[in-house]
């Protein structure tokens, strides 16, 4: 570990510590936005762990997230709260492994379409089970406050960043970057591409499921149509791409401005939200094709030491 790594780790820990102090300053509006940001930071970062290096665009976030909310919804009365995210992580990883085994041999648009369908598939299976068992709508009535949820999300974010950092330094991370550049070359170099991709997809799926399990008490009423809402998957992809997936902090650089922009539009133009968001997307795609990370690299290249 070089001095630079140690410095970066220290700075990251300091930043996280500061962010975790926020609820002491405000427990209302700002915390509510910050909780949303924390949620999307975890989702987008874990999404980028897999999709960034491999270039496989996954739209399955909502499937894993919904699975997690249902774990909490079904289990919060009978199981201890700390156990629920762990169960969610396990189920999320298993689901990701199953999906990965079937689909990661596909590539490009086939994979995208399948993951989009996955959320719907899981939703219908959950509904079918509910219908067979007479299970009712779920009310997650707990004493958990937004502050608790925020801290749990920040803790999870720290874990995700750490995992991402370790992966990037490992043989696995190197293998994934080769897969992303040219999968055939990777295979010929002796990399087990399927295993590498499935492993990363499992991590990404497990994290999204844990987020669902943590956030469920915030929604109170869990129903399949909101738990598996496909818009979540798209939001995560858009935020991650706005930030850029080339670096670990990329998605975070997308989540913060995007959440503020969304809030700004919701607040000032409640009747034209979708229209203005569409315009914002167009601008992002045309003006910032590589996301903020790309912009940062370009600027560094032009002005700074990055060119060497």
């Amino acid at each position: 570990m070089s001095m630079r790594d140690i410095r970066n780790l220290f700075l990251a820990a300091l930043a996280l510590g500061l962010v975790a102090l926020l609820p002491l300053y405000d427990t209302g509006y700002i915390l509510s936005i910050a909780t949303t940001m924390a949620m999307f930071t975890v989702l987008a970062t874990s999404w980028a762990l897999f999709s960034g290096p491999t270039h496989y665009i996954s739209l399955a976030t909502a499937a894993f997230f919904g699975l997690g909310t249902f774990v909490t919804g079904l289990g919060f009365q009978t199981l201890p709260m700390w156990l629920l995210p762990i169960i969610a992580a396990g189920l999320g990883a298993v689901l990701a492994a199953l999906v990965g085994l079937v689909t990661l041999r596909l590539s490009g648009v086939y994979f995208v379409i399948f993951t989009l369908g996955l959320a719907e598939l899981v939703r219908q299976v959950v509904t079918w089970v509910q219908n067979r068992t007479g299970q009712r709508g779920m009310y997650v009535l707990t004493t958990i406050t937004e502050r608790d949820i925020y801290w749990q999300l920040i803790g999870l974010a720290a874990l995700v960043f750490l995992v991402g950092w370790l992966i990037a330094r490992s043989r696995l991370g190197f293998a994934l970057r080769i897969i992303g550049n040219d999968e055939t070359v990777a295979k010929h170099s002796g990399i087990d591409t399927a295993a590498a991709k499935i492993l990363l997809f499992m991590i990404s799926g497990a994290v999204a499921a844990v987020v669902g399990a943590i956030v469920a008490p915030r929604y109170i009423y869990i129903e399949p149509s909101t738990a598996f809402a496909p818009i979540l998957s798209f939001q995560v992809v858009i935020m991650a791409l706005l930030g850029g997936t080339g670096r670990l902090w990329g998605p975070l650089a997308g989540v913060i401005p995007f959440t503020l922009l969304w809030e700004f539009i919701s607040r000032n133009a409640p009747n034209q939200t979708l229209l203005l968001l569409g315009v914002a997307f167009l601008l992002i795609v045309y003006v910032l094709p590589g996301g903020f990370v790309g912009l940062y690299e370009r600027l560094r290249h032009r002005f700074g030491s990055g060119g060497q």
Partner: protein
Amino acid sequence: MKRRSLMMGAATAAILAAGISAAQAQDTIRLGAAAPKTGPLAGGADVTHWPAVRLWVHQTNEAGGLQLADGPALIELIEYDDQTNPQQAIQAAQRMATQDRVDFMVAPYSTGLNLAAAPIFSQLGYPQITGTNVTNQQPELSAQFPGMFFVLGRTGVMAEDTAQVLVDLREAGEIGSRVALVNVADAFGIEMAGISRAVLEENGFEIVYQTSYPLGTQDIAPIIDGARAAEPDAFIAWSYPGDTFALTDQAIVQNFTPSVFFTAVATAFPSYYGRFGAQAEGVMGMGGVNPDDPAFQAFAEAHTELSGQGPDFWASASTYATLEILGQAIEATGSKDRAVVMEYLQDNSNSYETVLGPVQFNEMNDNERYWTVGQWQDGVFRGVAARGRDGVSDVILKDGWD
């Protein structure tokens, strides 16, 4: 870089500006409302929620506002779109309370969004008088959120009353014992089907056909096909707006003609009659009103005049009533201090005059008097079963679709 700082700057400015604009004039009451303008429930909110809210604000201001202890106060309505998304519903409630500093908030639209926003209402001390929240969890919810009130009624009671209509018809010798029971496979449909099935079986009815379908399904034909083949006397569907229309359409196409045809949500919408016209005659659904009540007639007329469309025959009136209740509590206390108004609302001895008739809350913040089943009769959706309401009409049998 420039663009990013521009965007961030704009957002920061917005947050700061909110703090400044919160300074309020003496003679207004700021009322915040967040409900769907986009997303899956936007259609329903457009029929039921928004016109009723705007109508009450319009009428109250026309009449000079609400009378506070130190003179009248006009209502200033602040609207947001919650995008039918619990996340946004939470954020909008938070924003209205802490940034716009509204004095009171209109409860959101639908059960799910009301529950998502409930902790915010509760923590910040806002009364949440709900008009579109049907649940059976009043005891648990009122214990957790003592400021949450329920005007629309209980799901369990509605399912029971629907089954009771069949029991009464059979006792009168009008129909037999064969029932086809279908439901949309989500929390609402499953719960309602479960309760009505239990009541029907207890009373010796025979469920000759039972099935469910996923929310948002396009293929309704096999359901009607199966139900028709079972030759039931009564067809009960715990359905949502999209499938309510689709089931009726299919029943007409296949000429499926049971003596009782019941579809749940949206049967009470004026657009249902608009679509099916005279064919809707005799169709039953959730809700209902007393159309002969002058209070409802005046409401319907004003509603049509302001929004260009009539109210629905169920939750429009209860949404409007939630604001009447709030307004009366504010005037009775002469205060826009939320804590004072909340205390008044929580006092069960107080009663409110609304378009629904008198409303009083029990110890679970629950209104015990409401319409449960309605039926299209001569172009009006008349209440044919109710708890504690006058003007219940007689049920007629459905006589085919022509």
